[in-house]
């Protein structure tokens, strides 16, 4: 049995769907046929031995519909959509060109209105009948869509910018036609028998050109998404039945073992099962340094493998991959509504009807005041043409799309336009310590052998043997600090085989002990060592100094002899201090929030330049702390923390920013996710917010200014004072460029340095 998807054309109602279904089922060999009316599709299951695709499609065509086979790969259908779009664009381009040529001739022909004498070879262009012949194709072919759309909208009792363009140009055209046919009617009244063909043609051409430019620019506003989706690899090399095969990425299944060679893209998310390499994750995290990957590490689809080969087990595929999640988030955010947008939203629905009312009023007022029919017509057309509701409608969404896209490129995922708007207003920024300012992973920072202090101490092991023992012992422990000691021991012993441990014992709050290579080894606190009468006073001064720096100190003894002191600490991320300094320079108060003790917290805060520290705060108290800042100090508060432990505080803050670990992008509580885990992202997010909001304000300002200034000038308010009137053709140009300028200004955001 094989399945076939058909794209159908010509269905006008649900009963058509039924008759196509019947026709399909009547074909011998077709076992199932379903027609979906709303999606114009049919799915057919058939026996390839009895029938084929051609027979099936012919059955549909025979009863009067069109059927087209949809290839199994959906990508191709999208290409067909793109082709239609391209065709449409080429058609638009051709009409703009024809319009431009004819309009230019008409403008030359109208120069005589301005006391310019044309050379005799061009004098024919001044003839109104010649101008009529030149204008008609522009009016009825180039600008056909304005009238069609306006008429459709009119019947539906709505009005949009096409209504304005169609009305304006039609009035100018038919007025000119009247003058052309019966000039004496005007001259006998004392009016000039002048035509405005050039205005009609120029308005249509410029508006169309504006639309064409706008379409192209609008496409560019969402390039971030296209770029993100383009990151994905097309194929994956998986191991099936002990053989390596290349398969399309869509066919990768969960738990497949995938091979990746140097220079290849990682197809889906997964966990490394063998091999070692460095991976460039900058496309997702913005982090420029390659990350090393070894067994057990997570790899993310769409990132680039650099140096080595490795195999990994697919853990997330299809729409669950980090990349798919990011694309979805960004798309949703780009389409979300910024509160500032509501202003423009409400205007546009009654904008056009009101403009038409103003245009009619303009006509009446001028007719009463001066009685000059031509002047009334010119001002009316000007008002209709210069009003530009589109610019108002485009002002906010285009900037939001560009701003959120730009964020995504830098590893900053903004969940909604509202957060983008709020981030600009942040006054206080609360940073969680562990994992936000610091790495969130303790490492050995200092080691000191007893031999450094008392060179003749008895029973001290050589460093290699000592660290082998420490590594062996700690590999049995589950204490958070054990991981740090084990890692350090591995590095020191160059990954030598660790010996086995006998009689391992962990004493909570004190340390661990056991027998390694026949020797009794202890690792633990000073208090524990005191209890066991192992004198560690030699390290006293050093210990106190290290603890003041926020480090935890443990001691090591072998066979009752003190060996070494080891300091373990959660290190500050290399970028934290600089990012915090920048935030403070931007005028924000930076506060550190931690569950850790005062001493450790102070030490870290000092190193990164934070003055205000809220230490010893239990996780459930974090929400209260944020509330206090919001209510008592009346501040707009942003909280930066890891998305899981700090979720309630993130949700309570005006803007919650989650520091991601590369893949946890869909962290629900946060408004903004910083994929790279770098505090510099906070700076970038706030700068991005400021830049985007400024951009929106500029857009709204221009859009309003065009209308507020343009409409009265077009209506001739300045005519009695200065003698100024707006040439309808110039009104057309202004209208066309209002939308383009808004879109271009939004695109400027892409280049803004943040």
């Amino acid at each position: 049995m094989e399945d076939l998807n058909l794209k159908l054309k010509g269905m006008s109602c649900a009963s058509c769907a039924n008759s196509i279904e019947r026709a399909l089922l009547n074909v011998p060999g077709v076992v199932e046929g379903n027609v979906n009316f709303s999606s114009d599709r049919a799915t057919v299951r058939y026996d390839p031995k009895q029938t084929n695709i051609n027979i099936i499609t012919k059955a549909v065509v025979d009863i009067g519909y069109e059927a087209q086979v949809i290839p199994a790969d959906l990508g191709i259908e999208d290409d067909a959509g793109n082709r239609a779009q391209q065709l449409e664009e080429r058609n638009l381009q051709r009409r703009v060109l024809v319009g431009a040529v004819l309009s230019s001739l008409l403008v030359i022909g109208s120069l005589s209105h301005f006391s310019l004498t044309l050379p005799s070879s061009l004098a024919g262009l001044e003839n109104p009948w010649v101008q009529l012949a030149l204008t008609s194709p522009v009016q009825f072919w180039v600008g056909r869509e304005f009238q069609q759309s306006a008429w459709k909208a009119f019947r539906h009792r709505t009005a949009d910018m096409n209504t304005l363009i169609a009305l304006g140009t039609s009035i100018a055209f038919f007025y000119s036609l009247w003058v052309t046919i019966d000039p004496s009617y005007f001259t006998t009244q004392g009016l000039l028998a002048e035509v405005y063909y050039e205005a009609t043609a120029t308005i249509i051409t410029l508006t169309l050109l504006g639309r064409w430019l706008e379409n192209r620019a609008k496409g560019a506003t969402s390039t971030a998404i296209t770029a993100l989706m383009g990151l994905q690899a097309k194929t994956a090399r998986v191991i099936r039945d002990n053989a390596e095969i290349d398969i399309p990425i869509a066919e990768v299944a969960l738990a497949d073992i995938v091979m990746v060679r140097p220079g290849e893209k990682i197809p889906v998310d997964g966990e490394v099962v063998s091999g070692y390499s460095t991976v460039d994750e900058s496309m997702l995290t913005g982090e420029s340094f390659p990350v090393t990957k070894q067994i057990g590490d997570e790899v993310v689809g769409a990132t680039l493998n650099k140096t080595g080969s490795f195999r990994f087990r697919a853990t997330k595929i299809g729409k669950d991959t980090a990349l798919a999640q990011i694309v979805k988030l960004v798309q949703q955010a780009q389409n979300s509504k910024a509160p500032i947008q509501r202003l423009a939203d409400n205007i546009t629905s009654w904008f056009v009807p009101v403009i038409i009312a103003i245009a009619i009023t303009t006509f009446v007022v001028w007719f009463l005041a001066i009685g000059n029919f031509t002047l009334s017509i010119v001002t009316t057309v000007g008002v209709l043409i210069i009003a530009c509701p589109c610019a108002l409608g485009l002002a906010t969404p285009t900037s939001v799309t560009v701003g959120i896209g730009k964020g995504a490129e830098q590893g900053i995922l903004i969940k909604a336009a509202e957060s983008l708007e709020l981030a600009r207003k942040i006054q206080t920024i609360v940073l969680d310590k562990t994992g936000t300012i610091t790495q969130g992973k303790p490492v050995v920072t200092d080691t000191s052998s007893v031999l450094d202090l008392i060179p003749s101490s008895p029973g001290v092991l050589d460093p290699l043997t000592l660290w082998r023992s420490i590594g062996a012992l700690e590999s049995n422990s589950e204490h958070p600090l054990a991981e740090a000691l084990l890692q350090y021991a591995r590095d020191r012993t160059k990954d030598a085989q660790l010996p086995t441990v006998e009689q391992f014992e962990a004493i909570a709050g004190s340390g661990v002990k056991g027998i390694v290579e026949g020797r009794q080894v202890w690792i633990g606190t000073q208090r524990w060592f005191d209890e066991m009468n192992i004198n560690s006073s030699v390290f006293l001064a050093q210990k106190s100094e290290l603890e003041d720096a926020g480090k935890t100190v443990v001691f090591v003894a072998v066979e009752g002899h003190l060996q070494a002191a080891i300091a373990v600490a959660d290190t500050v991320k290399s970028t934290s201090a600089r990012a915090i300094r920048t935030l403070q320079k931007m005028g924000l108060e930076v506060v550190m929030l931690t569950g850790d003790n005062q001493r450790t917290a102070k030490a870290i805060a000092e190193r990164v330049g934070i003055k205000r520290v809220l230490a010893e705060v239990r996780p459930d108290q974090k929400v209260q702390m944020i509330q206090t800042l919001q209510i008592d100090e009346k501040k707009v508060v942003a909280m930066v923390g890891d998305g899981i432990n700090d979720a309630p505080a993130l949700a309570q803050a005006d803007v919650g920013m989650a520091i991601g670990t590369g893949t946890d992008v869909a962290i629900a509580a946060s408004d903004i996710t910083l994929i790279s885990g770098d505090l510099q992202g906070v700076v970038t997010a706030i700068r991005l917010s400021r830049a985007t909001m400024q951009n929106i304000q500029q857009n709204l300002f221009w859009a309003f200014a065009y209308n507020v200034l343009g409409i009265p000038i077009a209506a001739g308010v300045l005519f009695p004072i200065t003698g100024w009137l707006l040439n309808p053709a110039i009104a057309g140009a202004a209208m066309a460029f209002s939308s383009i300028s808004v879109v271009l200004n939004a695109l400027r955001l892409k280049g803004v340095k943040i």
Partner: protein
Amino acid sequence: MKVAAVLVGTMISIAQMGGDPMKMSPSNPNRSFQPIEQPLPVKVGVVLGGLTLVGAELWWFLGRKQQKQQATQTNGVQEVLITVDGGYRPDRIVVVVDEPVRLAFRRLDRNACLDEVLIPDFGISSRLPIGQTTTVEFTPNQVGEYTFTCGMRMFRGVIEVKAT
């Protein structure tokens, strides 16, 4: 893009060759607008005609009633087919809360404004290719009214979410 910009520039400068663009003023004898005394009945006629037109136009465009349609249930999904032709028909969609909604937009109008449909409250924006039916899906979890609009927010419709 650059070619287009040059083209625009050229066209504007051609349009401006005719002199000061803002000025079709009395200083220019050919295109001056002479005052003409119109007879009173004509004036009254123009005023009345104008007022009627304004009234009719505002009534026509602003006084429109929305076309309401209840979604039909198929396989647990609430479906509505919306024709996009000079606006959205129907433009008031009634659905119930907490059940998936599938809106099928069939676009027949070439109007560039209608090229995109936005439902901001559900984070949806979708291009509607001409002559095709494009579906969007979402699940409303709150009773209320949500607007959907075209890319430029000129055409609009409402999704009315009711309690079950």
